[in-house]
């Protein structure tokens, strides 16, 4: 664990990618195959399952630290990270336990079937023999949350340097269903044919947002223009008569979407499609809200299938007749896709994403304004002569979203942030006018600069009306322009509306609170866009 703790500290201490990659390469060189594979797994979100309830960890930590549980919980709220809070409140270690990363992961996994008393003994023993940094990582492993300041992309770059393989090859090898338990470093990275795993997806190509207008992208005719759909990005694989559905988060979600199961027979073997898992009924997309009701459910019931049906809005093909065709141009791939789909009795399980043609960008911009009426977020622009790339790369795919909806609102509550923003007031609740009253309707966390957050933090400290635990009500004084992507009816909120992706657009220092918008205005937006 010492090597891994050292790696973590080095990654955490720098924001420079070169330094991070160098630290990773050095780590890969230093450790054995098993630890290396585990580190790769952890850095690509493959972590052991939680074997101890966090409520128990909190109790034990408070007990060992000699503080009441509520004080531990309040501290946790300030720190914003359970593993870190525990590591900090515990007394210093009394002995030294020096084991490999793999040892500790096995140790944590072996807790699964023990009684709470036995678990406690083992966890306390680990805590008493690890340094603060090591404890933090042990806690991260045990709580199942593992985010470090290093993207999967950097890990792949380091692994590419270490192994001498192309980054794109590494990216592909690291996709899919493997865990450090079911493979080895040799099988995953060194084996000749990584496609032995028939479920293995391709890395997704991700688009950047158009900066301003698309005028400098060349002629509209060089671009395949489609609507941008508001669903879940997905990859559908049919190989050897089996179907696999992957979400962009690299989660295998085949079981969650039984609607797609007939595709195993409909699509020829050796087909991989890229598209959007989209709530859809009666020939029309539905609001993303509807899809949200079935994400995260363990069982997909009949009722859910009826209330939240999905289709696959397909827009690209990556593998055809068992051949990887990502290097063919968008144009060619589109042609293959059209030929494949139009002949199939898909019964609306698959819908081909429509392409739109415009002579000028002005004409495109005008149609883009209608996006919300199609329940779409704007346009996608894909260069017709481009291959299918890996990851987020500038140049060939762009998202050109409609301007967000906006409303001016008054800040009425403030709460300290957590994690990176601990001890700054960064989380605000906003209200609009309902006659003489201010009615809260949304929270928003992001969109201001650090300097603005500091300014507001010092203002909040001096203008607190009441404290409710970590939340402070403040004198209604400041108006902010809130941007959001959509609006829906909600019975859970006092205001009767729920916003999609609310964030702070800017601080309207020029506006007195009397000029903020009203609940009436919000309801008007609901009537048009809801």
């Amino acid at each position, binding site marked *: 664990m010492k090597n891994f703790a050292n790696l973590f500290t080095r990654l955490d201490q720098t924001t420079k990618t070169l330094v991070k990659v160098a630290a990773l390469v050095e780590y890969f060189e230093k450790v054995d195959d098993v630890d290396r594979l585990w580190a790769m797994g952890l850095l690509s979100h493959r972590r052991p399952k939680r074997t101890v309830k966090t409520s128990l960890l909190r109790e034990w930590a408070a007990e060992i630290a000699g503080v009441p549980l509520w004080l*531990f919980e309040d501290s946790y709220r300030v720190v914003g990270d359970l593993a870190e809070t525990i590591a900090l409140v515990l007394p210093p270690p009394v002995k030294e336990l020096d084991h490999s990363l793999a040892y500790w992961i096995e140790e944590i996994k072996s807790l699964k079937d023990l009684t709470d008393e036995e678990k406690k003994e083992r966890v306390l023993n680990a805590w008493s023999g690890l340094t603060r940094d090591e404890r933090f990582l042990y806690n991260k492993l045990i709580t199942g949350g593992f985010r470090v300041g290093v993207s999967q992309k950097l890990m792949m770059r380091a692994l590419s340097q270490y192994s001498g393989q192309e980054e794109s090859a590494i990216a592909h090898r690291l996709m899919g269903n493997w865990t450090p338990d079911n493979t080895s470093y040799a099988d995953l990275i060194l084996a000749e044919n990584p496609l032995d795993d028939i479920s293995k997806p391709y890395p997704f190509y991700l688009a950047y947002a158009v900066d301003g207008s698309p005028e400098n992208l060349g002629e509209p005719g060089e671009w395949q223009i489609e609507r941008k759909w508001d669903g879940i990005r997905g990859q559908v694989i049919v190989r050897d008569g089996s179907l696999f559905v992957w979400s962009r988060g690299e989660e295998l979600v085949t079981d969650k979407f039984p609607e797609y199961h007939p595709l195993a027979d409909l699509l020829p073997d050796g087909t991989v499609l890229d598209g959007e898992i989209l709530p859809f009924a009666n020939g029309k997309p539905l609001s993303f809200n509807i899809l949200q009701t079935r994400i995260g459910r363990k069982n997909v019931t009949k009722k859910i299938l009826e209330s939240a049906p999905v289709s696959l809005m397909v827009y690209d093909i990556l593998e055809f007749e068992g051949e990887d065709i990502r290097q063919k141009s968008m144009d060619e791939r589109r042609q293959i896709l059209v030929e494949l789909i139009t002949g199939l009795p898909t019964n609306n399980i698959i819908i081909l994403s429509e392409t739109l043609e415009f002579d000028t960008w002005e004409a495109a911009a005008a149609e883009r304004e209608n996006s919300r009426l199609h329940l779409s977020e704007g346009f996608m622009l894909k260069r017709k002569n481009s291959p299918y790339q890996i990851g987020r790369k500038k140049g060939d795919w762009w998202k050109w979203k409609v301007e967000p909806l906006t409303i001016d609102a008054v800040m009425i509550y403030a709460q300290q942030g957590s994690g990176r923003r601990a001890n700054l007031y960064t989380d605000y609740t906003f209200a609009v006018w309902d006659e003489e009253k201010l009615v809260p309707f949304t929270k928003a966390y992001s969109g201001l600069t650090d300097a603005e957050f*500091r300014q507001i933090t010092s203002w909040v400290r001096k203008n607190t009306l009441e404290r409710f635990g970590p939340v402070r009500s403040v004198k209604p004084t400041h108006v902010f322009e809130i941007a959001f992507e959509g609006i829906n009816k909600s019975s859970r909120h006092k205001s009767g509306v729920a916003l999609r992706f609310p964030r702070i657009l800017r601080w309207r220092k020029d506006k007195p609170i009397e000029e903020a918008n009203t609940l009436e205005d919000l309801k008007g937006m609901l009537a048009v866009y809801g």
Partner: protein
Amino acid sequence: MKPDLLKFTPKGIYCQAADVYIDPWKPVPRALITHGHADHSRWGNKAYLATDIAAPVIKYRLGNIKMETIKFGEVRTINGVKFSFHPAGHILGSAQIRVEHKGEIWVASGDYKLEDDGLAKPFEPIRCHTFITESTFGLPVYDWKPQEEIFASINAWWRQNAADGKTTFITGYSLGKAQRILRGLDTSIGNIYTHGAVENINQVIRNQGVSLPGTIRITKETDKKLFPGNLILAPPSALNSAWMKKFKPVSIGVASGWMTLRGPRRRKAADRGFPLSDHVDWKDLNKAIAMTEATRVIVTHGYSSIFSKYLNEKGIQASIENTEYEGELAEVNESAEENKVDAAAGGSE
């Protein structure tokens, strides 16, 4: 019930019987000052009283003020109320102010720490009925390591930077933290350069007869080729300023108690965070309060609601009063007051 000996008013902590204020944040006729940090010692009062050791910096910062001084332990009786100043261990000359009237004793502690930093006279516990305390780091997650360990890691970092041909840039309050860091540095590694705001305070302190390691003030004329391998000591407000652009290649460190947590450490986008504070950590905060034997505690700033709840559970009557003290915010460049002072001292250009 007797009225409180010290009251929290919109101008500051007020002793009605003596008609004086302690660390007021609005101008008053007579101010008793615990120490020279900008949130405790503000401009505009008609008369000031501070320890003879704290006075030079206060006078330097506030300019032409009417200042009387008092020695640690000396008793000054004002309208029958006895005032005396006692070491708080926070920074050079920092004091707790003991107030006694008709057998009742209150202590306003300002900011304080228990660890002896070799500069400030170490904290002396004063027995009292009511203790006014900060709680800047009043959570059990704040647990300082001994300063020797922190200095060892600062020096190791400097040595590594020097080996890599980089300039080492470290920030700390220009008053207090900067001098503490200065005394912990291993001067065999290289030269120590200072920002104007830090060097001005160094000068005042050296003139008091306190010895500090040699430093070089950075001016317009300083050749920037001289910086690599050496160390620059600057106030937190210098971070990300135009002034610091000329120090590349550079490794940046921040010395503050806040650096205990990953969140603030990462928010600073500094290369290194060193948890070094001139305030008490959790265990010393509780230890200090226990030593005063106070039955009543008033918490002024920091995690005051959480900490007062904890004290009440332990059977110590505790309450919160709102003040405009800022604790260690300036160390992460989040203070309104300290920055003005540093900005006035300028980036030497």
